């Protein structure tokens, strides 16, 4: 590079540094605003959930509780329905996630083997379902005919393998060095052995991503509870209980003071909790497990999304 170029470059840098700085200031301000807009609603709900229920009705709670109290949480977990719903939520998340990860990995492994005779057929059969589905009512009728309505397994079977998960695991396996799989074969490992001893341990990053996606969707789902098991209270989940509370407050929206207790609450508790505080507390309980987990898996799911989004 000629000396004059360097000089020019330096001069230019000094010239733009003001514009650069203004841009940076605006950019950082914008990012901070974005974080506030994202986080404030959560912090506000958290504050309401930790505040005394009667005091919350006066309004004016923003970032911190005014009258600290854990009564709302105590009330929620004493309530048998909600406690049971939390157990069902945990159960479906654990069982659903384990089965999804294992089954998706097996199918992905088999369709990643270039020499597998059914490879094309299985792949196309799965991929096609990305583009159409029977729809709500036919699926509902099928579940009813298979006696899955009113059973726990209706939460597990229909969503066992997602095509998106399949694609990201397959791409990951295909990107493993061929020599590793070959070396297993030379040592006499069959396909099962290769899968369990070589592929599964090597694919943990992508399996973690799939586990996160699947766990989140299991934990978050309420519609299948509503659709199939709304009359089976023993199979209700946390999200569905929250949805019911939400629906109740929807119908009373507009009337300023939400009097009447939420359905199912004890009359004796009337003085300690209010629909407002119960809803806030349920919202926190329903979202905290996920908020605690996803940041730790960030580097995995970002990679997974890259593969899934760009390669499809």
């Amino acid at each position: 590079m000629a000396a004059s170029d360097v000089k020019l470059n330096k001069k230019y840098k000094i010239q733009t540094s003001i514009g650069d700085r203004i841009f940076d200031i605006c950019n950082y301000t914008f990012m901070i605003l974005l974080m506030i807009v994202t986080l404030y609603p959560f912090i506000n709900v958290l504050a309401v959930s930790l505040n005394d229920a009667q005091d919350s009705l006066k309004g004016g709670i923003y970032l911190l509780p005014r009258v600290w109290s854990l009564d709302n949480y105590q009330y929620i977990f004493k309530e048998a329905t909600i406690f049971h719903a939390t157990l069902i939520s945990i159960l479906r998340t654990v069982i659903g996630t384990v089965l999804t990860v294992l089954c998706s990995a097996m199918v992905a492994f088999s369709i990643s083997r270039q020499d597998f005779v059914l490879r094309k057929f299985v792949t196309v059969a799965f991929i096609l379902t990305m583009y159409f589905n029977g729809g709500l009512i036919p699926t509902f009728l099928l579940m009813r005919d298979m006696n899955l309505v009113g059973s726990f397994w209706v939460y597990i079977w229909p969503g066992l393998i997602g095509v998106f998960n399949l694609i990201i695991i397959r791409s990951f396996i295909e990107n493993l060095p061929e020599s590793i799989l070959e070396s297993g074969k030379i040592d006499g490992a069959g396909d099962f052995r290769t899968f369990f001893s070589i592929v599964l341990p090597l694919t943990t990053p992508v399996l973690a991503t799939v586990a996160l996606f699947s766990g989140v969707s299991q934990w978050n789902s309420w519609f299948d509870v509503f659709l199939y098991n709304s009359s089976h209270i023993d199979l209700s989940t946390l999200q569905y209980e929250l949805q019911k509370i939400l629906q109740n407050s929807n119908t009373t929206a507009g009337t300023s003071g939400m009097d009447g207790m939420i359905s199912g609450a004890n009359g004796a508790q009337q003085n300690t909790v209010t629909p407002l505080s119960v809803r806030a507390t349920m919202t926190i309980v329903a979202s905290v497990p996920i908020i605690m987990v996803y940041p730790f898996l960030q580097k995995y799911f970002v990679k997974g999304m890259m593969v899934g989004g760009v390669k499809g």
Partner: protein
Amino acid sequence: METNAIETTSMPPLKEKPKGIKLFFVKLLQQRALVIMSVPFLIWLILFKYVPIWGWTIAFQDYKPALGFWDQKWIGFHHFEFLFGDDRFLRVLRNTLAMSAINLVFGFLTAIILALLLNEIRKVAFKRVVQTVSYLPHFISWVVAASIIQTTLSPDGIINELLVWFGFVNEGNEILFLGIPEYFWTIFGASSIWKDIGWNTIVYLAAMTTIDPAQYEAAEIDGANRLQKMTFITLPGIKSVVIVLLIMNIGYLLESGFEPQYLLGNGMNVDYSENIDIFVLKYGIAQSNFSLSIAAGMFKTVVSFILLFVANNVAKRMGESRLF
């Protein structure tokens, strides 16, 4: 299991090379481990994803649950004709398309802009914090999100308090946002953006990392400022990803989502919040009018399929990577 696997590999090499159908079965036998790992799930797939399509026949019947399949009365396209003469369905269709379009245009623009801005942040730690925070709403359920949105928008929520504080609204005249039908699309759009803007930047940021740094250096030497670098290097660099995603999303034009509309909708804003999925749910489950409901759902699926197919071919013709 393991004995099987060992047998597979220790099988003696075949003397004659089998051909055609025989070769297929010989290979199938050799690869029985793979078969065991995939065929049960193929059966699962057919049962749970393909069999329900049989239910579409109900759309062409005057369906009576008590009767068997062969005893149903076939009435052709009657239900479809009814749908397109039904004011409610046409309104529902309008809502679906409008909300999809809002999602598509604004969801896209905001995510690209945020990705561009994030890309300009040089403090890695700060960037990471912003990203982590921005992914948060994506992971919570729509139930939780709806609960939060409802609280925020309620007459004593923070939005109204800010409006009062700035003097846009008089105290006592707070706005019940979810009770005004015309506001619903805006609320829906804003909520969707709030929930997914951070998540949607992942793909763009990934595409940006593939841009050759030498290009920026060259531009710097030519005296390009930051805005110029953004518009002439970064944006063209992610062009192909943007096009693919845009096309994909056009394919999902009739899928405007279900949960936000259902959870934020109420009796007051129903004229603007009800979309095809809610229509299907209300007719099908609440009123047990299976035929009409399936006809509406089938219309949605078929149109989506055609859109996706066309979109995919357009992408292929444009030389961009495609879906399948």
